[in-house]
């Protein structure tokens, strides 16, 4: 049966040699299309990464600027809260220094005298490190794909 089939195929090819050329062309075209798709995907991914990188830089710059501005404003607030400044403001408003004999102490049930509190902002915890390259990402995707494939085909 298979012998007959092979002979039929030889005969058919002998009669229509263009079929071989079409097959070769189709294979080349297929390869080209696959390459184009991979290239396009790579380009899209690279573009998206580059854009994200640029956006990240812009955001980082903005963050730096805002942090600097924040620092400046806090320093300005601190400068406006210096004791000489506040003393002068209080005098301007008509306040006078309280003498020891002018202070009245009262017992208030449940009142606890003020204790120093950690009122300063806690320094921000560093962001988690991000060091994944495009190659790493592609490898990860590929490994994930292989794992899924193994699951479907029952591989281990």
């Amino acid at each position, binding site marked *: 049966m298979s012998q007959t089939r092979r002979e039929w195929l030889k005969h058919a090819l002998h009669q229509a040699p263009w079929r071989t050329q079409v097959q070769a062309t189709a294979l080349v075209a297929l390869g080209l299309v696959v390459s184009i798709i991979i290239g396009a995907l790579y380009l899209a991914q*690279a573009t998206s*990464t*580059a854009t*994200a*990188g*640029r956006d*990240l*830089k812009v955001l*980082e710059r903005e963050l730096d*600027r805002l*942090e*600097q*501005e924040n*620092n*400046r404003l*806090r*320093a300005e*607030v*601190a*400068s406006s*809260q*210096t*004791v*000489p400044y506040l003393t002068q403001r209080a005098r301007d408003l008509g306040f006078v*220094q*309280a*003498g*020891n*004999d002018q*202070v009245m*102490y009262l*017992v208030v*049930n449940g009142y606890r*005298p003020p204790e*120093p*509190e*950690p*009122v*300063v*902002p*806690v*320094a*921000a*915890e*560093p*962001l988690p*490190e*991000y*060091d994944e*390259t*495009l190659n790493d990402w592609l490898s990860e995707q590929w490994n994930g794909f292989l794992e899924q494939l193994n699951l479907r085909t029952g591989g281990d």
Partner: protein
Amino acid sequence: MIETIDRRLAFVSVIVTLLSVVLVIRLVTLQIQLPEEEIAFLERMRDDSYHDLRYETPARGEIYDRYGYLLATNSLEYQVGISPALIANPEDVLAKLAAAAGRDPVMLWAQWEEQDAAGAYWYPLAGGNVDLATGQTIEDLGLPGVELGPIQRRFYPQSTLAGPVIGFVSLEGQGYYGVEGYYNQQLAGRVEDSASRESNIPFEAAYAPPPQPGANLVLTIDRDVQFLAEGYVRLGMETYEAENAMILVMDPRTGEILAMAASPGYDPNQYGLYPAESYVNPIVGSIYEPGSVFKVLTMACALQVGIVTPDSMYVDEGMIEVGGRKIENWDKRAYGQQDMTQLLVRSLNVGAAKLSTTLGPSRFYPCLEDFNIGAPTGVDLEGEEAGRLKKWGDPVWSESDLGTNAFGQGVSVTPVQMLTAVSAIANQGLLVRPHVIYQQVGVDGVFTAQPQYLGRPISEQVARQVTEMMINVVEYGAPKAKVPGYTVAGKTGTAQIPTPGGYEDGTSIASFIGFLPADAPQVIVLVRLDRPNESIWGTQTAAPLFSEFAQRLVVLLEIPPDATRYNLQVQAAVQE
């Protein structure tokens, strides 16, 4: 003709082939046989071509007072640079720059002409750097040939307040002196993680490991008390015509330093304008002979060892000879029968020397060491001195030292050391380590400083006895130190100033150490005046300055007068 061309072609072909072979051989050797350091060099060249090294300096931690007032922070300045070659229309550019930077246009134009004539390709804007807001305004103008270079700076919003306590940071980011120097590592953050490679070819998202910021520090310093103390330092210098003055305020129960004021001080924002000597905090970094204040330690040692009780009597003959040296009382008088309290109230050198000689060096000096005399206290400030206590057995020690040390002569201490030693008396005999850090707030968490005990030089009972004597000193010996409404325990000191050839004539270091309320001390204060002209005596200068200062201090610290405090305690007990 054709043969000639063929020959020439063959020759050229051979040459080209040979060159190609050489090139291939070289390429192969480069790939295979290259030394490792050359490989590393070439890899570095490759990486440098495609990557930039990006440095990120971690934000230096901020410093706050105990109630959260900012004492030190970071700021950004800009250096404005001008490149004449890149400016086509200097009149317009300089006019806009002058308006944005708030500089005189005439001055900028004069600078331009001078630099342009000299052929400068770049020069910094006259009048120094500009602040962040001005820099951003200039940047927004987009002026050609005008560049902005960011410069990180440390900023101290309270200016001179607590300058020597805080220290300063150099342009290179290194902390010096005070807290900035002592805690430089904690404040600076993690610098080693701050360099990262950033790809020039944008196929990878830029990765920059975030540097770990420095920890914020909360000091035990109370800004208001510090301001008050610095004001009274100035007042004391003016009133008593003293060369220098200092006031140190501490909580004897915990060792927390509330204020540390000393002249002349400096503004850490402009540390370069001050002589280097002024950077050292004299309260921790300079030693002096304490004088009669030291007698309370001698008395405490005598009571602790048990050679006397508060009621013990001795005959004061006005003079005693120890190791061949005559020791006299400050007024050269003989006081006859005296008890231990009178010894302190009248500040009798002869009595103190009798105590130390009765103790003997084998008991006297170990007791002083228990008070941490002769050793650094371990206060968390840069530049602490240990003081000097010549001990029995030292080659430089002589028997006369045993007599003079008893009243604070021939022994050197720092002000913080002296205050710490006396604070043991206020703290029921427990000696605490002085410190200026209340909290460290960083990415690792919040750490609150706990009191550290250096030891127990005297018992609780002896501490009470000496306190009682010191109350009498203020009541009868130094009444100018009294604070209306409060019981104060204290002791004055009038110390001669040693010179290489002996002691200065007619000058002194006048001091007073006192704590209140005497029965439940909340605060202990050292006041010191160097070479006061008004009077050399501590009773006439340091004691009244202490009184004036303490009257304001109790208001700030909300310490009620004794009578009010007792009433409040009774009321609170009834309500409970």
